[in-house]
């Protein structure tokens, strides 16, 4: 007790900042990829066509039920063996996390779309709006607003899951922390700082979602 030594660790500040940058980029890229995949697979899962429904079903269940760490490792070590194509550490982590998040976002989107009352579809239909316009202007805007809270939580999970990329040597925040801990022999202090930096990345996301939620609250009429 009483001999926490933070001073030495502060010398590694530039490394930590670089780690935060990599974590932020990983989060941003995989969240964007996940949102696009999530939307596409959510819509596919509504289809009665087996060639749309089943790929979506398999994708969602596969990525929901296997650990993201395993997915990252598969992509990093497995993909080059199978295809000869190497995404690199950062790329493998970003794509694996994006695929993983896509499965969760898809289920959230789906719940949001189901939550838009069918009378909204009918109102759009009698006005002559086609499927694309109905989704774009009527259903999706309401669906997204309905599911902002779970979207926010899932996104925060994702940002924390970027720490798994440390397992394949991506120089993100946790990886930097591990290296600093080894050099300074101060793992507890180092990880405390790492945790605070994760908080600094994720908390603004939580605040942003809160704000969006208040701004876009859908009235039930």
């Amino acid at each position, binding site marked *: 007790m009483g001999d926490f030594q933070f001073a030495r660790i502060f010398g590694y500040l530039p490394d930590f900042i670089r780690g935060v940058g990599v974590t932020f980029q990983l989060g941003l890229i995989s969240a964007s990829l996940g949102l696009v995949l999530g939307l596409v697979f959510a819509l596919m899962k509504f289809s009665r066509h087996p060639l749309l429904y089943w790929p979506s079903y398999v994708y969602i269940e596969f990525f929901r039920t296997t650990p993201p760490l395993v997915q990252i490792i598969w992509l990093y070590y497995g993909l080059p063996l199978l295809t000869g194509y190497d995404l690199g550490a950062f790329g493998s982590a970003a794509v694996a996390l994006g695929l993983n998040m896509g499965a969760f976002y898809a289920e959230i989107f789906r719940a949001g779309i189901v939550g838009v009352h069918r*009378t*909204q579809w*009918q109102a759009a239909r*009698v*006005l002559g*709006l086609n499927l694309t*316009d109905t989704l774009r202007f009527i259903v999706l805007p*309401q669906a997204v607003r309905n599911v902002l809270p779970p979207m926010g939580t899932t996104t925060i999970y994702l940002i924390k899951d970027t720490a798994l990329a440390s397992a394949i040597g991506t120089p993100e925040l946790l990886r930097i922390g591990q290296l600093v801990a080894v050099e300074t022999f101060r793992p507890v202090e180092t990880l405390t700082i790492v945790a605070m930096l994760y908080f600094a990345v994720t908390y603004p996301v939580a605040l942003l979602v809160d704000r969006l939620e208040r701004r876009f609250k859908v009235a039930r*009429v």
Partner: protein
Amino acid sequence: MAEALIAVERLVKRYGANTVLDDINLDVTAGQVLVVIGPSGSGKSTLLRCVAALEPIQRGAVRIDGTLAAKGEEEEGSGPSRASLHRLRERVGMVFQQFNLFPHLTVLENITLAPRRVLGMAPGAAEKLAIDLLQRVGLEDKRDVHPERLSGGQQQRAAIARALAMHPQVMLFDEVTSALDPELVGEVLRTMRQLADQGMTMLVVTHEMGFARDVADDVIFMDNGKIVERSPPAQMFEQPKEARTRAFLERLLDREGRRT
């Protein structure tokens, strides 16, 4: 006799083994206001939804101004093409019991969306049209608010304006005052009355017998998925032909009498 604007021919609608509409034949000519009355569960609303092609039908056909709008699944031959369904949507406006305005859009956006996206109207022209319509239904000061800020009567009038923005030839009204507080019913009925006076062809499902008496050209009484009787309102309410109609109207008038 003029060609019917709405022609329903031998329509059968079933949910599973339950026949909801049983061999319905119905013609509405241009400019006519037809009011459909009957006990709940008689199939009135389903009939309207079939005319709007919101429900698949099992037998028979629905034509709007000669264009096939719906065809029984059990009939030979193909149903309406996507293109003809699309043209139909532009010709038929529908107003629902629960208004069904788009809650995330303002009143103005609710009205301009379909003219812009379906008719390809320029934003400025669509807005001008919407403002004209809002004036007609007395909501010009509500253009920029969201539906949640409106009373039920105002929402329903906005929904009527939204449907009119597509310049429909036919308007369908599905119990549009049933969800309203009694003091708000009048303003919606007045709007509908105006519309009838301007010559709009209307098919109206309602429990408002006063409206039926004053505005309808013909009243239809439905029971158990069948059209029991079609008569001008004076005859329907004074000397209905069928015993079932008499019984229904007596129950209704009895209830209304007790209410006052």
